[in-house]
């Protein structure tokens, strides 16, 4: 368990009321509920950031993968199927 430090927060009334309701229902201190919510939020933020980086890496890997395709191969890849033109 990480060390704790006392602080003062100013919170939106509705969010605070909901946190108090949860604390009462679970018979725990309000600080426990607030700490859990903050930790969950921070974890989700960190996961979203990591997922964003994964998306960037995956797209860049794909760009590198197609960079050596010829124009004819790109046409085919884009569903443009050519045949000799009747002159």
């Amino acid at each position, binding site marked *: 368990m990480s060390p704790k430090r006392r602080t003062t927060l100013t919170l939106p009334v509705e969010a605070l009321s909901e946190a108090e309701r949860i604390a009462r229902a679970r018979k725990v201190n309000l600080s426990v509920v607030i700490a859990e919510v903050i930790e969950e939020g921070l974890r989700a933020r960190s996961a979203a*950031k990591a997922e*964003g*980086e994964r*998306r*960037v890496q*995956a*797209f*860049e*890997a*794909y*760009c590198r*993968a*197609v*960079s050596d*395709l010829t124009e004819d*191969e*790109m*046409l*085919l*890849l*884009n*569903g*443009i*199927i*050519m*045949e*000799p*033109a009747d*002159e």
Partner: protein
Amino acid sequence: MVEPAFGPYLFDTSAFSWLERSTDPAVRHWLATYLRRHPMHVSAITVMERIRGYALLLQRAAPGQRAHFALKRQAYLNSLGKVWPVDATAAVVAAELSALLPQPPSPPKRAHRMVEVRQERLFRWRCDILIAATALAAEIPLIHHNPQDFETIRMAIETSPGRFPSLGPLNLVSVLRLTGM
């Protein structure tokens, strides 16, 4: 300039193709900023078009080259984010559009002494209609690199609102405008 944070956007096959080949640092930066915030949103039709392209490349490739193309195909699948299905609303919109616009607005592509197979041009047109319908049903802007086809679709929706009740307008963004070029 299109703000990446205002996404998500649906990327048409032509936009996806343009983005994957662009080496412009401003474009790469825009895309990285976008992808840090949103998955790459594409239609299932775009996935079909692209995987069909790989299937054709693989069919025509020499045996020694097949693994090379298979790796590219896998890299494409790894890069996908949110894939939108063609749901009932998109199917109805696409059907109305297909009836309004049975023929593609631009001729088959030509290059050197080659011309695009006519039925393939029609196939691509119907794919464009399905992709536009998906964007309209999902109410997200469509990023494209095919103004002739998509502007025709947008105009048809605007001029026949009775066929598309409580939908539209189709919000189009050219891929060339992403970075304010």
